[in-house]
Structures are given as C-alpha cells and as structure tokens.
C-alpha cells in the first residue's frame, strides 16, 4: 500500500528526517515509537503533504502513485487520513459545513453522486454513534471549545465519515482518559476494514493493547533504528529508549 524510500525532510531548513525506509502492506498496522523530537510527527506530516515541510530526498509510493507529486487534498481524496495530534480549531466554520465540503470532495474524486442534505445528515448521525460524539458538538464550529478528548473523538468521527484506506494516528491517545481511549480505539477497530492499513504513532503501550500492531518501529533522530513485532513495544514500555539512544 505505502512504500517510503530513503525519505529526507526539513522544516525551516532543519533536517528532521534523515533517510526513512518503510513498507506497509494492505491491512497492516505499524506502530512508530520514539523519543520526543525524533521526527514521528514530521513523518506523518510529510506523508499527508503539509506544505510547511520540504522533502529533500527520497520518494513515497502510495498504491503505485507518486505521492510527492500530489497535492494535500489529492492525497486525502486518494484515501489517506491523518488523525491530528493537535486538531485545529476553526472558528466560524460549522462541523456540518466542513464535513459536507469534505464528503462532497471525496465523492467527487471517486466519481460518486453527491449526497443529498437529508442523506448527509443521516450519515452524520450514524457515524457519530461509533465514537459516542455528542450531537451538540457537530453543530458547533470545527473543534472550537472541544475538550482534548472530544477533539480526538472528533478526529475518529471524521475518519468514519471519510472512510480512508490508509490512516495515520498521530498520538491519538495523548490527553485521553482511559474510557475515552477505549472508545476511540474501539471506534477505530470497528471502522477499519480488512485492507485498511495504518501507522500508529504513540509513546505508550496502552493504545497498542487495543490496536494490536503487526509491526513496531523505533524512530530516533530521523531514522528507523529497529523494527520488530509487537513484543518490541512491550520492551520499550518497560525499559524506555535508553538502550537505543546509546547505540
């Protein structure tokens, strides 16, 4: 599904990613763990095409297409979804208008007929239940006045609306209490179809207990220094990154 080869990226001239290689097959969940500032969020931003980052070397192939030649919205409409570490508040833009524009864009890209207003609201109602998101929140401005937990639930709700094939969960567990974490993680599992792949960025084992990654990578100083099975996450949870930093 996704293949990253020798990826180098900078922000404001500072090199953050220093040669990432990563292959994710259909239906696989990869966890990326690493110290603060290692480049985890940069990796997710580069995959989705945040214009603030510059790719200086390497390539990303998504289902046979060169991702780096595609605009942010083209990548999104090709099925890539990022659950933001810090979802952005957009005062004045209602959740309904925002999602409607997003769903319409997605349908248009897929050559599907646009949803009627009634069908759209029905879809919202249906998907909202999956993450137990309050009705009141969807009538407000995007993320405005949402608590940390509500923002993360809202991310998964948007994922439900857009049905991506490749998801990046960027520290979706940060700021969540145990119940909210369960709702978000179970919501994700419910939505995930067989071929959907994901990268899960996290500091903690807790989220991985629910999501059950197939492969775990350790990212330090812009490079993946170790790849292993789910047991690697358990080891990190126990011993921290010290062993790897010293290497």
């Amino acid at each position, binding site marked *: 599904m996704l293949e990253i080869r020798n990826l180098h990226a900078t922000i404001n001239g500072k090199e953050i990613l220093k040669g990432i290689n990563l292959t994710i097959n259909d239906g696989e969940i990869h966890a990326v763990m690493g110290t603060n500032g290692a480049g985890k969020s940069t990796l997710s931003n580069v995959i*989705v095409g945040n214009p603030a980052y510059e790719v200086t070397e390497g390539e990303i192939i998504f289902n046979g297409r060169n991702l780096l030649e595609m605009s942010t919205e083209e990548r*999104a409409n090709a099925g890539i979804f990022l659950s933001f570490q810090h979802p952005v508040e957009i005062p004045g833009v209602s959740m309904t*208008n925002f999602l409607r524009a997003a769903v319409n864009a997605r349908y248009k890209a897929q050559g599907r007929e646009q949803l009627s207003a009634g069908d759209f609201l029905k879809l919202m109602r249906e998907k909202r239940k999956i993450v137990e998101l309050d009705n009141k929140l969807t009538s407000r401005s995007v993320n405005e006045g949402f608590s940390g937990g509500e923002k993360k639930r809202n991310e998964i709700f948007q994922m439900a609306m857009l049905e991506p094939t490749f998801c990046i969960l960027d520290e979706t567990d940060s700021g969540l209490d145990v119940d909210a974490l369960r709702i978000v993680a179970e919501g994700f599992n419910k939505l995930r179809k067989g071929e959907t792949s994901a990268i899960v960025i996290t500091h903690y084992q807790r989220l991985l207990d629910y999501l059950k990654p197939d492969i775990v990578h350790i990212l330090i100083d812009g490079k993946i220094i170790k790849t292993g099975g789910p047991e690697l996450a358990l080891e990190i949870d126990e011993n921290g990154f010290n062993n790897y930093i010293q290497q």
Partner: protein
Amino acid sequence: MNNNQYIDLYTQVGETIRSRSCGVMNLHREEARKVLEANGFPSQKVEKYKYTNVEQDFAPDYGIQLSSVGNTRTEFCRQLKDADLDVENYYNKIADNTDSIVALNTMLAVDTLLIHVPRNIHVKYPIQINNVLKGNQDTMTNRRVLIIMEQGAQADIIISDHAVDHQQFLTNQVIEVFCADNSHLNLYEIEETNLMCTRYSNVFIREGRDCSVRHTVLTIFNGHTRNFCRVMMVGENSETILNGCVIADKMQRVDNNTCIEHIVPNCQSKQLYKYVLDDSAVGAFAGLIHVHKDAQKTISEMTNANICATRQARMFTQPMLEIYADDVKCSHGSTVGQLNDQALFYMRQRGISLYEAQLLLKSAFITEVIDTIPLEVLRDRLHLIVDKRMRGELSKCEGCKLC
C-alpha cells in the same frame, strides 16, 4: 468636477432645487455653500480623508438629480404637516456641516426621506428601503434621510444600495438619527452595487437616556466607499453597537470611519469591523472612542480585524482612544493577517480543495459580524449573499425584482 464647479452648478440650478424642495431644507443651503466655498474638498492631507481621494471620486462630470423619484417629491412636506413635528428642530441639527461632503449634500439635496416613529410605537416589521441607482448617464445623487425615534419607540430599518445600470454613480448620503429616551433602533446599511459606484455616507446619531442603537454597515459589493458614523451619547444608561463588514477584491476601496462621543456617564459602546481584502483591494478603518470628562463608568470596546488574502491587498487601520475621564473601561485593538495556514492544511487534509478551504475561512471570518444581527431572516439571507459573493456568483442583487 472640482468643488468650484459644484458651486457653479448650484448657482445655476439652485432656484429649481429650492422651488422643488421644502422650506426647512432651503434654510440651510446658503450656509452650506459658504462652507464648501471656504473649505473646498478635503485633500488626502486631511487625516480623516487620508485613504480616500475625494477629488478623484468627485471628478467625473456627473449629472445631478433635480427631482425625486416618482411622485413623492412633496411627500416630505406633506408628512411634516401630518406628523405634527417641528422638523426644524431636527433637520441639519447634528450633521457636521463643517465637512465639505456633508455641506455638498445640504446644498444640493432636493428631498428628505423622513422616518418618524412616534412615542411608544414598536414597529413590528422591519422597514426596508431599497435605493436603486438607474440611469443612462453618470449621475450623482444627494440622499438625505432623517430618522426620528420618539420616546419609547422601536424599529428595525434596513437601507440597501443597488445599481442596475453600468454608469458611474456617486451617492452622497447624509443620515441624521435622533433617538429620544428609551428608544431602540437597529439600522442596517447594505451595499451591493458594482465597481463603477462610489458612495459617501455620513451618519450622525444622537442618543438620549436608556436607548440602544445598533448600526451595522455591510459592504458586500462596491467601487469606492467611504462611510462615516458619529454617535453622540447624551443620555445615561444607553448602549451603542457599531458593526461592519467588508468584502472587497479587484480594485475596490472601502474606508470606514467611526466616532463615538461618550458625553455622559454610565454608557456602553461596542464596535466590531471586519474586512476580507482580496486581489488589489484597499481597506481603511479609523475608529475613535472619545470619552468626555464627565463620562465616568463608560465601558467601550473597539475591534478591527482584517485579512489580506493577497500580497497586493492593503489595509490601513487606526483605532483611537481619547479619554478624559478617570473611571472607565475602554479597549481598542486591531489586527491585520492572512488566512490561517494550519486551518487551511487541516481542511485540505480532509480532501477540501485549497480554493474551497479559503472560501470557508473567509466566510467564517465575516460570519462573526453577521451573527451579531438579531434579525434572523436578514442574518440567514446575508449568510447566503456572503457565500455567493465569495464564490463570485453575485452578479446581480440577490432576488431583486428590478434587476
């Protein structure tokens, strides 16, 4: 034409104007002519006209309107008799005739639209006045409006400007508003004309005790616009809200000037003006809160927030406070910025195109002003109009039967 040519014009047609007008209006013409003669048009060296080129705006050889539209010419005078109102106490009493543009209006206006809401009358439905600029030659109109709210009166008044023909139109408007004690007025001005229209508007409001006045001016589509609004708060426990929004692109220019005079204690005022400037549009805002010596316990705030969506768009903003009392709470603030990159990225990550995301953000920015409008039907309509305007679909006034 320059100011002398306007005076010459008055010399030629003054007799006709006087004969078609009312005694009370004729009383002030000569004085106004003298002011115009002595002061001339303000140049851009005059602080409050810094961002408006009066000479250029008034330069075309405009024809002027000597008769009123239809048969309403004598309406004003007739109304005066019916209303049992001593209009001499109101007409031209608070308009600032030291301003040459106001003086020009006083000198040339043929008729006055009088809206008189008698004591304790609550006007149930909003009053809408549509000004439609029409004609086959370049025309200047001097529009005069007098709004008298008697004690305990309440009204919503919507004044909208439209243009049907593609001629150069210059509207020079003066509105005087008198709000007696405990009266409540919502005055909306909506400008939806075209690139060839120039508008000068001078609004003067005097507010008594326990009043609330809300003046909202929305520049949706225009050529060149200069709006001025002065509020004199002469009675205690009153509230003034001045709001405005501007959507401008291409070569449009919009200049909003406000002045709130807090003369007595215990009053509140609030101002919110927001601009979205695209292409090579130029915006200006100058707001003044003037708190007089005795106006203790004044609460006043002024906000002007602006977006320049391109590098060519320009915004000049000047929020001002003059405070001579020592127990007041006043704030003023101004921002000029670009669309939020993070919000744009967030929306694009959800598949929304850059163009659409920008539209959503620009509309959202303006929404804050529109959402302050208490009149629900108007609010909904304006949301629609703003959305269409942003998409460039507003080629004619929405739903107007005349166009």
